[in-house]
């Protein structure tokens, strides 16, 4: 009744630069596993964001481009339009996708570009030292909201899955998390589904992953998991928000 577990081929041997307990690593692995299972490594192009995952290309074993901050969806559009046979995903943080890159993600989703976006929502700007993001929770302290996010000034956190789902163009949109194994299994299914829609050239696909940033939250990884479950998941509700057809 035991099982085996090994490093997927699509993941490189390099050690990551991520902080202990950072869920970026889990998400990387899931993507790699899905790519292995679908056998598409030879026609993959990943797009690294500007954010903690900026060096993502060091951790996979297929082609990568590195976008400017927020512009990964435009880059992916460029690739998919000229090479529809390639499989393309963007990997973006919440600062990247929900703040500076808001225009790009909405328009790519609305045009129905046939690529996949993995959206890593950790409610802060991880790489630059924990500044407030559009997804930061009300009252959450960050380096640029030292007194806690003030809703009166900064508004409510943006829920990207819901926002994108309100567009009329068909898409696959889901929100998952990777803070516990049970969720991780579901997230992997979602990523696989997203890639499958892309392979069928059916629609744009979007997997939001509620993630942790222990370092900038000032918590241990275990505390971060707990806070995520208790605080984030009631605002960022998991589930499938939109399916094509």
């Amino acid at each position: 009744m035991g099982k085996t577990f090994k490093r997927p081929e699509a993941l490189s041997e390099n050690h990551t630069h991520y902080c202990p307990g950072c869920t970026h690593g889990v998400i990387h692995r899931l993507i790699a596993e899905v790519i292995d299972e679908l056998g598409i490594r030879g026609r993959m192009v990943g797009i690294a964001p500007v954010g903690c995952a900026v060096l993502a290309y060091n951790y996979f074993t297929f082609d990568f481009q590195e976008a400017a901050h927020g512009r990964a969806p435009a880059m992916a559009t460029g690739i998919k339009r000229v090479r529809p046979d390639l499989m393309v995903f963007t990997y973006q943080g919440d600062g990247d996708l929900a703040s500076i890159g808001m225009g790009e993600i909405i328009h790519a989703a609305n045009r129905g570009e046939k690529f996949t976006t993995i959206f890593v929502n950790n409610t802060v700007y991880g790489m630059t030292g924990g500044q407030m993001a559009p997804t930061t929770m009300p009252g959450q302290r960050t380096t640029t909201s030292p007194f806690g996010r003030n809703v009166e000034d900064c508004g409510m956190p943006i829920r990207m899955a819901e926002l994108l789902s309100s567009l009329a163009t068909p898409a696959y949109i889901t929100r998952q998390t990777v803070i516990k194994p049970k969720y991780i299994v579901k997230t992997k299914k979602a990523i696989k589904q997203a890639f499958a829609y892309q392979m069928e050239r059916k629609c744009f696909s979007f997997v939001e992953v509620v993630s942790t940033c222990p370092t900038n939250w000032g918590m241990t990884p275990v505390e971060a998991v707990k806070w995520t479950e208790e605080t984030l998941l009631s605002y960022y509700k998991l589930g499938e928000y939109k399916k094509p057809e």
Partner: protein
Amino acid sequence: MAYKYHIEVDRCKGCGLCVTVCPKNVLEISDKVNTKGYFPAYQARPDDCIFCTTCCIMCPDVAINITETAEPAEKRVGEGA
């Protein structure tokens, strides 16, 4: 069928997530620092391990793997690659 459980010590960042998710309470954090300065996880109670891979699934650094082996199960802590 036997399994070999292996934590790559220098990949482990000692985040402790595997420890919390193990259904059999097999894992603990070591008090010996690895080359990167982290205190890695190890199987404190290897015999309790049921090779369920839950810890592997959780580990953000893909530091744990479980392989099938013809020989009887070997379990060692922090074995090198």
